């Protein structure tokens, strides 16, 4: 089942029962692939039941596409099995690494934007798409640091990867805001430089504001609160350029009630149904 041009939410075990009992009006659900790699049990039972009622997108957090080492073939096979079982409309992974040697570090770690990492990441994405027999979407990261050796800007690097591999893109608008604040980029210029033609899904999430040792703003991508007004503004700018696009609310910690989460998705839905032009958004932002 394809993902409709609507808003969806990340599926959480705390909401399984309410969703099945009330069958709410929502475009789609998304799950982290690794949470459904157990052999059996309630997670599969609930996901199977919800999958019968809604379109599903599958979001990987453990493939470590940016790792310097070869991809984990066993993990790719598990992804392939999961895709065969639940037939998700979209499959996405991150521009990041998380595994090195024997250790899995359970976070999305940044990569330098150089020709060397570009070649490696493109070859990993080629391998993923060949093995899975389908297109994958690549998600832009939220970053806290930069690498001195980087020679590409982030949107240019992503455009190069996309052009070489033919992958689709998952544009995390919150990550654009978080990374732009942390790296002191202009988020609207980021969007202007980004290969929007390849975007098939958008993510929105809340972040936690902190500061670094020089009192510069440092936003942490915590997924534990509502979407920030500045992110909604950037989202409206993106939707003005793209038109309605499958948009997911990610809320992974300090979970709200199902009703509050659903309302957040309906807010994205309302943006999509009444999207202003990019010029109007810019005027509102500077006025």
């Amino acid at each position, binding site marked *: 089942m394809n993902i409709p041009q609507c808003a969806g939410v990340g599926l959480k075990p705390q909401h399984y029962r309410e969703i099945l009992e009330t069958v709410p009006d929502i475009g789609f659900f998304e799950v982290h692939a*690794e*949470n459904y*790699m*157990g*052999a*059996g*049990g*309630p*997670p*599969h*039972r609930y996901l199977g039941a919800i999958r019968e009622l809604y379109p599903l997108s599958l979001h990987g*957090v*453990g*493939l*470590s596409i940016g*790792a*310097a*080492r070869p991809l*984990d073939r066993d*993990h790719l096979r*598990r992804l392939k099995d999961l895709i065969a079982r639940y037939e998700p409309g979209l499959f996405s992974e991150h521009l990041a*690494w*998380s*595994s*090195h*040697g*024997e*250790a*899995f*570090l*359970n*976070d999305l*770690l940044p990569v*330098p934007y150089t020709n*060397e*990492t570009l070649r*490696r990441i493109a070859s990993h994405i080629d391998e993923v798409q060949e093995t899975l027999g389908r297109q994958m979407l690549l998600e832009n990261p939220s970053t*806290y*640091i*930069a*690498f*001195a*050796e980087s020679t590409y800007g982030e949107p240019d690097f992503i455009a190069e990867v996309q052009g070489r591999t033919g992958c689709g893109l998952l544009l995390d608008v919150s990550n654009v805001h978080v990374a732009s604040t*942390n*790296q*002191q980029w202009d988020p609207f210029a980021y969007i202007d430089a980004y290969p929007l033609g390849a975007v098939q899904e958008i993510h929105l999430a809340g972040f936690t504001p902190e500061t*670094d*040792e*020089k009192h*510069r703003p*440092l936003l*942490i991508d915590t997924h534990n609160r509502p979407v920030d007004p500045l992110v909604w503004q950037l989202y409206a700018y993106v939707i003005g350029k793209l038109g309605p696009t499958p948009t997911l609310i990610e809320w992974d910690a300090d979970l709200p009630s199902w009703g509050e989460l659903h309302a957040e998705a309906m807010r994205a839905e309302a943006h999509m149904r009444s999207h202003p032009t990019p010029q109007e958004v810019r005027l509102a932002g500077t006025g």
Partner: protein
Amino acid sequence: MQGPAERQQDFAMALLDAARATPPGVVGPDGLPSPRRFAVYRNNVVAGLIETLKENYPAVHRIVGDEFFRAMAGQFATTHPPQSPIMLAYGADFPEFIDGFEPVATLPYLADVARIERAWIEAYHAADAEPLSAADLLAIDQDRLAQVRLALHPSLRVTQSRFPALTIWRMNIAGGEPAAVDLEAGGEDTLIIRPGAEVRVHQIPMGAAALVTCLGGGKPVVAAAMAALEVTIHFDLGATLAGLIEAGAFIGWSFEQDTGGEPS
């Protein structure tokens, strides 16, 4: 200049060891090193692993308290990072770690409570299978009952303790009421299984753990019963088997000499 593999190795090591310096070339927006920014990744990794352990070991968390648990789990996380991207599998070594963790030497039952919690998580995510009913098992030729081999449910786990670990676990999970426990009251062995939708936890009699372990190893009932009798001469095979059948412990049977004794 290091290659990318060495750079990632450095980055990974510095994440798990706060005493290590921020890797070279990791900078803030002014192009200068920023340890505070690097520390965000360090905190994410360690805090994420502690949170996973807290979710999977709720009774251990309640017994030692949040602050102590975080310190203990943090030490485990940095010395035992996950080996797999499947976080459902994380923390299998935590009970062993607790056993050797000096500051909890005064809580000798804590590792056994952790073993029950680990078994619970494994049972929750184990493969699904339909248990045999007592009626199914009545189809076995009674004259050859001693030679039958019983296939265990894939979710079945057994833990053993010299202490009343199950009683302590029950008191410290959601809805439990902690109370004084006599640690000298004798050990408790526990069967953890998910025959259907829900994980069930049962106390099992002495010897039953040995019986189940032998059956799981492919031994016929008679050999498994001998192993149980070695634990205690009071072992009651009939009552124990009845309890196991009721718990949904068996999913198939076969005879030693046969290859096709599975019920249809």
